[in-house]
């Protein structure tokens, strides 16, 4: 079984660096319109900020219930994506045509801007949840047999 590291440096650095990674992931997600980045990169960074404490503090020190069921969150991300895609379909446009989104007081191009942000959030949730879930599955199986 993978032992947690018993080192002051690793523990302190993990505590310091985890919120920084999360903040950077949020920046990458929201700034994806203007700079390199977007849903996939932000999702992986979020997953890194969850996986890093598991590596440093061991599997007991984590929010294990949430991470064990992380795959459900992944489904929620896809539903968010598909729901934003379905809204214009109901309102008389095409599937995934964000120009028809019901946001009042905006040009079609601005609506598309916000639609892109919405589906990027969905992609982020799915990628982060799936990465954490795959890591958890790979690790849990190996540890479960020896106990």
């Amino acid at each position: 079984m993978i032992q947690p590291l018993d080192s002051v440096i690793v523990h302190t650095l993990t505590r310091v660096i985890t919120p920084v990674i999360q903040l950077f992931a949020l920046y990458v997600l929201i700034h994806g319109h203007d700079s390199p980045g977007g849903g996939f990169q932000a999702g992986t960074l979020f997953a890194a900020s969850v996986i890093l404490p598991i590596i440093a503090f061991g599997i007991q020190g984590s929010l294990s219930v949430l991470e064990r069921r992380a795959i459900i969150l992944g489904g929620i991300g896809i539903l968010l994506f598909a729901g934003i895609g379905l809204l214009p379909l109901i309102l008389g446009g095409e599937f995934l045509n964000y120009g028809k989104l019901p946001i009042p007081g905006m040009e079609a191009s601005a609506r598309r801007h916000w639609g892109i942000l919405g589906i990027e959030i969905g992609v982020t949730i799915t990628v982060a949840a799936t990465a954490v879930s795959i890591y958890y599955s790979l690790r849990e199986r190996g540890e479960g047999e020896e106990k």
Partner: protein
Amino acid sequence: MTLFDDYLLLLLAVVTALGAVFVRDLFSGVLTLAAYSFFLALLWAGLGAVDVAFTEAVVGAGLSTLFFLVALYLTSHQEEVRKQLPVRIMALGGLGILGFLLLFGSVDLPVVGDPKSLPSKHVSSHYLRKSLEETDTPNVVTAVLADYRGFDTLGETTVIFTAGIACWMLLRRRDDSAT
């Protein structure tokens, strides 16, 4: 970016790939593979594909290395050496022919950096011209990914989710099925 930098990074990528493959210990191989990913990310950033370079550095060098390391830690990292000369010779022969054909075919490919090449003509110039006006998004890659080709991205997100479910179902323990 001059051609010289490209030569250097391509050489480094090929050398690290060879190292990752021919090193005996699998842990060293996986870590050399991470170095290979980083060199490719640098190369792509130089070639103008910043989004792809970012993704490769985060996902290719970070996440896939992590998965490899966890899997190796839970299994074994010693590769057994054995001689199997006939398979090697057959593979080398077949791949030699394939490599010659690929090299022969690459004469017809456009010169690297040709702005009038066929892939740059058709729909991509429309994306470049219109994306800021139509979607209010300066980063054309994000606009194409999420808006013009949003259906692709939806399908691909579903593929990732399916991979997560497949992993979970492959590796769950028997007593876990009750909960």
